[in-house]
């Protein structure tokens, strides 16, 4: 039997159904009625005839049976959205003669109502139980079927039960000592149904217990009169007995339990009392519920609660947490604060620390160990950490649905924001809710990241509005325990503008000052209410005992989550004294009543904090830092205080800050490391330590802001006296300058640095020369400035020598003459993988690129690189691998895979925050790939969106890409002009890397100037024959064959490409050859079929379409234009390979640095496509 799992059907009101809180559309009135009818029969079979009889009131049309069947099938689909069609019979079951519903007792409100009514339910507080039962009612039972004969009996029965429930509730409350306050309600109930004896009895009893004997007897007289008038009978025995008892003042009439006056206050608070202070937040709360309902369906939601301080964002976030916990969802919460803004991954730690276990932090998640201070080795951080944290989150969500809640996102540290942004883009299928509050008008330099979270169209943004005067009235009455004078309420509302925090603080202040909520005290409201929250709190604090003020101040200085013993030590009070002061502050709603210590609201914290004169604040932070250091707190926790303490030139401070910077670096919190190091520099450090601080700072700064980093490194370079340090600094500078400085700067610097090298430092020299030369190439600098034709091949085996080999390999590619040399140097450069130690992406990838353009087999180079990059945890390394592996896959015709990788690189480039040099490469490649796929419009969009590159080799690549788009658009004259505009100061001879001739020829040919085109193409073919890489030569031959229309040229192209990896190039060549009139029919058909298959496999839809067309012209009917279908990507294949080895999903995910979800998705995709 299906329990409905989330299905809820409502009879107590209008007929309705919902699934996990989301209302279901049940269709038209008859279709709805079918379900209502079945539910009314409570699981008993209802014959189809009877249903039809009811639905059409005895006048069924001929099609009634068919209609009924379709109603049933529609209903099943709507009631069981997640169940496959064939198995949808759980809720509405087909029985021999008809249908029956299969629902758990909880699924139908009326059934639950009756359960709650059952007196057997012992133990439970009857008032609560009956209130809950009555709260299930939304209106008259089955209101929309009130006129239907088939619904009448059940409506009558349910309404009668409702009356009984109300009477029982009234009785329970009278019993509980609320007699006096129940009188009014009972009067109303009597008026409503004057012939229900029980109501009269309760009314009289309540009056008697409220010490109104005469009124009690009066009520009994009225009852007697009513019964006589209406029915001509006497009241029943219960009323008669009561009358006798009242007259006798029988002790039996006394209320059973003696209750205090306090509990006798009428219960205006609904049963769900924690939500009672949420006034006028129905819309928001329903959105929260919606998010949780989605969560139960395995869907994610991002919620952003936005608004001014005090509007109730935090309260809503807490409500989300509360409701989530109620339904078994795990809640991980964090609260950002200004103090911890420089504490890298502070928010992430708060969020995940309670949940992470050692077992969770392995494999792909291992780099996250650094975030939780569990790692012993140092790494570079960033992407690996982000990815690891993402894996951790995904793992946790796979265990239990998650709510990740972040309060005060505007104060979150940069790395944590990056994590949230990273997560946000990858959580579509993760059962998680990410909810955050953000104060409007406070986003600062992290605005972009925050915006990424906020303004994504998928995010649900809630903006709670100010409270109305009516809501104010309710809240004031609740706080004072009685109604307030209208003038008093108006003043409360007017002075707080309906801001709930202001109002709460105001009311708290007024209650604390024992102000009566009457008209005479209106000006007390104005006096307090028009104060900002901050001054309200400060005023209240000022009136509290000295020790409370000092404790508040220390909590403010130590920041949220301050530990009580630390507070005590900082205040200089004993722990019991401190605890007492904390209790007082909690009662006064200054501190919040929960662990860990913290203020009720950030505004309050700020107010207390700002109230301390800034000089004293600095000293407080200094003392806090010393205290925390002494008590073994983490370097970063101590550093957060040191950042706010005065500078004193203390080497201990510098050491702590440097240690904190290392920690931050380990967890990839580069911006925080920079902050710590800058502060360490200001301290200032002892002069001997200064260059190393500068070097560290420079290296970190280059990761977030290359130019700033260069300046810092330059300073370090100037201060450094140790030759080793000088070389390290110089290398770092030159390396950074390649991507950040004005053209030529890297070259000039490296040249100068080489001159300063002491004799004997050959390897260092090799390294600098490598950077000098690669800088010249990448930045397109006049070769006279960097190309020393006599440079010798390095002989050493140091890192510098490897760098130089990589550079020389690339130079060999550019020259395009000696392919063997390029391959040899490229292989040598990477053979011992030592290049990784010095260089995380640049020259390592240059060496690979050299081999790639020489058509050397790279083997598993990329897999190893990827593994190393992840292990190293360098974002720059990962993005380099993605970029160049993408280029590699492009050359192999794996167009979809190539696009995916390069796009990933692009995203990472932005994340890296570099100068965007890499973007020119990635856009250039993406445009060309789109064109290879035949997606001209997409290519146009990309090239238009590409950031302008003004100089360097990237600018050349972009320029050529722009020309390619124009060619594809048939704008030959523009294309010709575009090609001619592309500058090549370096003089790249090899058409494999600089195919300008081919593009120019294509433009000329398009313009009908074949005569000018042909020599260019012939020249290119000749050059490439000299170079000898088959894929480049084959491509060039194809172009030539298309223009010179010679069969043998195209035949050669096909032959050459058949020996290459360039699958898409081969397809294109086969297409051209197949279309050639000299190709015999049978051969042509075979070629075109191969071209079609190959193009489809590559995702080159343009070629595929043309092949189809050509086949049709040859009278081939079999070939329809196939829609492009995604083929298993390399990722999927790797997953499949490991799966075949018997590894489970978690193991595969760890081995390949993927998330379990991605592995799942990959396997699902493979299964769908029938790939084993």
């Amino acid at each position, binding site marked *: 039997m299906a329990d409905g799992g989330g299905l809820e059907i409502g009879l107590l009101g209008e007929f309705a159904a919902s699934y996990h809180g989301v209302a279901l559309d049940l269709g038209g009135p008859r279709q709805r009625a079918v379900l209502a009818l079945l539910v009314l029969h409570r699981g008993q079979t209802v014959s189809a005839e009877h249903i039809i009889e009811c639905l059409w009131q005895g006048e069924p049309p001929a099609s009634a049976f068919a209609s009924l069947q379709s109603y049933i099938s529609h209903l099943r689909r709507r009631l069981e959205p997640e169940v496959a069609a064939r198995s949808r019979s759980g809720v509405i079951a087909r029985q021999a003669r008809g249908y029956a519903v299969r629902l758990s007792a909880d699924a139908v409100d009326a059934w639950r109502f009756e359960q709650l009514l059952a007196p057997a339910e012992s133990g439970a507080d009857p008032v609560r139980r009956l209130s809950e039962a009555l709260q299930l009612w939304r209106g008259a039972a089955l209101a929309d079927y009130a006129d239907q004969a088939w619904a009448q009996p059940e409506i009558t029965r349910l309404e009668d039960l409702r009356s009984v429930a109300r009477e029982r509730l009234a009785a329970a409350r009278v019993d509980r000592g609320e007699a006096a306050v129940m009188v009014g309600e009972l009067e109303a109930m009597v008026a409503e149904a004057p012939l229900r004896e029980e109501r009269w009895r309760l009314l009289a009893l309540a009056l008697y217990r409220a010490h109104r004997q005469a009124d009690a007897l009066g009520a009994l007289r009225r009852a007697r009169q009513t019964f006589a008038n209406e029915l001509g009978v006497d009241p029943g025995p219960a009323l008669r007995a009561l009358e006798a008892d009242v007259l006798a003042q029988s002790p039996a009439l006394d209320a059973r339990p003696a209750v205090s006056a306090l509990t006798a206050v009428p219960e205006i608070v609904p049963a769900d009392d924690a939500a009672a202070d949420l006034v006028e937040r129905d819309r928001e709360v329903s959105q929260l519920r919606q998010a949780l309902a989605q969560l139960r369906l395995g869907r994610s939601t991002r919620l952003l609660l936005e608004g001014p301080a005090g509007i109730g964002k935090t309260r809503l976030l807490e409500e989300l947490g509360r409701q989530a916990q109620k339904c078994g969802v795990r809640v991980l919460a964090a609260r950002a604060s200004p103090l911890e803004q420089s504490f890298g991954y502070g928010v992430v730690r708060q969020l995940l620390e309670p949940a992470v276990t050692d077992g969770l932090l392995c494999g792909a998640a291992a780099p996250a160990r650094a975030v939780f201070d569990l790692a012993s080795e140092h790494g570079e951080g960033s992407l690996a950490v982000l990815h690891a944290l993402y894996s951790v989150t995904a793992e946790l969500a796979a265990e239990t649905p998650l709510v990740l809640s972040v309060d005060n996102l505007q104060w979150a540290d940069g790395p944590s924001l990056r994590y949230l942004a990273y997560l946000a883009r990858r959580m579509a299928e993760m059962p998680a809710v990410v909810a955050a509050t953000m104060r409007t008008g406070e986003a600062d330099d992290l605005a972009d990241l925050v915006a990424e979270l906020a303004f994504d169209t998928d995010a649900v943004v809630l903006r709670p509005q100010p409270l109305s005067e009516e809501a104010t009235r309710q809240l004031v009455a609740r706080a004072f325990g009685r109604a307030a*004078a209208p003038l008093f309420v108006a003043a409360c509302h007017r002075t707080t503008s309906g801001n709930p925090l202001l109002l709460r603080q105001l009311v708290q202040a007024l209650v604390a000052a024992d102000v009566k909520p009457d008209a005479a005290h209106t000006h007390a409201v104005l*006096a307090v209410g*028009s104060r900002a929250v901050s001054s309200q709190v400060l005023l209240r604090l000022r009136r509290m005992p000295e020790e409370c003020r000092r404790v508040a101040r220390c909590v403010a200085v130590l920041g949220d989550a301050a530990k009580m013993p630390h507070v005590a030590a900082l205040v200089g009070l004993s722990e019991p004294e401190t605890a007492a002061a904390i209790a007082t502050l909690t009662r006064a709603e200054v501190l919040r009543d929960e662990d860990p210590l913290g203020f009720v609201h950030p505004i309050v914290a700020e107010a207390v904090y700002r109230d301390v004169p800034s000089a004293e604040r600095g000293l407080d932070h200094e003392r806090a830092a010393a205290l925390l250091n002494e008590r073994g707190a983490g370097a970063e926790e101590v550093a957060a205080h040191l950042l706010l303490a005065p500078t004193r030139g203390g080497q201990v401070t510098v050491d702590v800050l440097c240690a904190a910077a290392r920690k931050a670096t380990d967890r990839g919190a580069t911006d925080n490391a920079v902050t710590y190091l800058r502060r360490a520099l200001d301290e200032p450090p002892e002069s001997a330590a200064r260059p190393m601080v500068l070097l560290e700072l420079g290296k970190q700064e280059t990761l977030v802001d290359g130019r700033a980093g260069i300046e810092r490194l330059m300073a370090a370079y100037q201060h450094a006296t140790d030759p080793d340090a000088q070389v390290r600094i110089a290398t770092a500078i030159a390396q950074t300058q390649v991507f950040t400085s004005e053209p030529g700067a890297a070259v000039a610097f490296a040249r100068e640095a080489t001159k300063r090298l002491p004799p004997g430092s050959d390897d260092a020299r090799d390294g600098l020369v490598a950077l000098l030369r690669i800088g010249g190439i990448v930045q397109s600098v006049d070769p006279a400035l960097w190309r020393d034709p006599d440079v010798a091949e390095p002989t050493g085996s140091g890192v510098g020598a490897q760098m130089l080999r990589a550079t020389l390999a690339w130079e060999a590619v550019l020259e395009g003459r000696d392919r063997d040399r390029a391959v040899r140097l490229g292989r040598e450069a990477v053979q011992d993988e030592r290049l990784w130690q010095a260089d995380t992406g640049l020259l390592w990838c240059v060496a690979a690129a050299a081999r790639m353009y020489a058509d050397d087999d790279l083997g598993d180079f990329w897999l190893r690189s990827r593994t190393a990059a992840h292990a190293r945890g360098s974002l720059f390394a990962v993005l380099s691998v993605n970029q160049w592996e993408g280029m590699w896959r492009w050359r192999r015709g794996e167009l979809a895979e190539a696009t995916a990788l390069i796009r990933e690189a692009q995203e990472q480039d932005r994340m890296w925050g570099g100068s965007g040099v890499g973007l020119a490469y990635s856009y250039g490649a993406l445009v060309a790939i789109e064109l290879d796929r035949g997606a001209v419009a997409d290519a146009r969009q990309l090239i238009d969106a590409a950031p302008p590159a003004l100089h360097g080799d990237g600018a050349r690549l972009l320029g050529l890409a722009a020309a390619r788009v124009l060619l594809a658009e048939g704008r030959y004259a523009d294309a010709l002009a575009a090609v001619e505009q592309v500058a090549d100061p370096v003089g790249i001879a090899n058409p494999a890397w600089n195919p300008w001739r081919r593009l120019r020829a294509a433009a000329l040919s398009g313009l009908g100037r074949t005569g000018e085109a042909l020599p260019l193409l012939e020249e290119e073919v000749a050059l490439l024959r000299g170079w000898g890489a088959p894929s480049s030569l084959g491509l060039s031959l194809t172009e030539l064959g298309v223009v010179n229309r010679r069969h043998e040229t195209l035949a050669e192209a096909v032959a050459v490409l058949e020996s290459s990896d360039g699958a898409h190039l081969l397809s294109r060549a086969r297409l051209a050859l197949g279309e050639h009139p000299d190709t015999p029919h049978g051969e042509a058909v075979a070629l075109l079929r191969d071209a079609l298959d190959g193009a489809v496999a590559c995702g080159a839809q343009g070629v595929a379409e043309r092949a189809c067309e050509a086949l049709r012209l040859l009278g081939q009917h079999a070939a329809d234009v196939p829609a492009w279908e995604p083929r298993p990507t390399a990722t999927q294949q790797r997953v499949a390979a490991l799966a075949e080895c018997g590894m489970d999903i978690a193991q595969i995910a760890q081995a390949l640095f993927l998330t379990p979800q991605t592995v799942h998705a990959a396997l699902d995709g493979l299964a769908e496509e029938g790939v084993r």
Partner: protein
Amino acid sequence: MRPPTSAPVTTGSAPTPAAAASLRGLCGGAVHLPGDPGYDMARSPWNLQIQHHPAAVAYPATPAEVAEVLRAARRAGLRVVPQGTGHGAAPLDGHLGDAVLLRTAGLSELDVDVERRCARVGAGVLWGDLAEAAGRHGLVGLHPSSPDVGVVGYSISGGIGWYARRFGLQCQAITAVEVVLADGSVVRASAETEPELFWGLRGSGMPLGVVTALEFELFPLETVVAGFLVWEWTLVERVLPAWAEWAVDAPEAATTSFRLVEAPNMNHIPAELRGRRLLVIDGAVLGSDTAAAEIIAPLRALQPEFDTVARVPAPSLVRLHLDPEGPTPAYASSRLLRGLPDSAITAVIGAVGPGSGSRLDVAEFRQLGGALRRADPRAALASLDGEFLALSLALGDDAAEWGRLRDDAGRLLSALEPWTTGREYLPMLDDPTDTRKAFPPDVHARLATLRAAVDPDRLFVGQHLMPQQPTP
């Protein structure tokens, strides 16, 4: 409306909104300027007849904030009017355009020192609050007839309460005053420190500074015999002379009032009396039940229709008079009377009695004498001479009726002109009055000198009109 007899601070130019804007942000934000959402509510005093339009309204909560407001007002060329509830705001009507209304509701400290039998209250504390707090310890203050009157304003300008004939004026119970002077200095005035200022603050009602807190004596009274006696008002010719005669000779233990009143149709009035025109004698009698009964026996002999006089908890006396609570439109005027001989009573009946056509809400006579007559030279208001205080009180929110009510109020006091003492009791006068009428000439001169010393630039606006003394 009235000739300005006191010269304002000379500032050279008229205050502009920009001048007041410099106050914004003071008092933690509790400053309301014209156009602000809270301004209308903030500027309205207890007496809804009055329409102040001050340049700004500020709600300081500490003496330091008061000083800030004073300094800012001075810089902006504005004057300052300290105001608690605004019960006595009427004489200032329409003259606050160049002034900052400094409302003291935020100064809410309230401490009862049971040992020393004294209280320290902030200027925002109302008598109802004090009565309750002191009553918890069996103590009473010399409170007025209504709980929503502010302690400070009432105390520093006199204060006739239900124990006045035994314990004197409330101003004489003051033991120390915390006051912020015009120059922003915070001063504690007592018999020991700043004795001259202390003297001036005890009953003069002069604007000598902003009183932020007051310390005064409390009296150990847990219960007291109190209540009211009621007659149909047509019996005025029999009851009023009898009360007047009794009042003059009654022991100091008794303090009462006699009212010709139309009982309002309101919840706090006993149902039987609502809407009727009545004679009401109410008040308190100290001493044992027997002694009290003996004292009021002559009044009971007049066979009141309604008699609630009984031993009651002392704090309840703050509501004995059944004055309207909360903001109310009102007009009050008063005269001190040498006595109420038959001829005066005839004049009263002619002015407001049955057949007079008067619609005056309250015509009241407060029983004076006793301790009120004994001079306390350490208080600016040393004593109240006279047997009775005659009081006209018009209430109501019917604008059309207002002129008539004021006429009726004036008619009673004019009729009593022959029996007045020639002195005025300023707190019960809603019309601006020359302060010289309230004090003997030497006392007034001394006050003028004091004021010139503590507020030479006349930063503060006085409720009543004090002619500038020629500089000596």
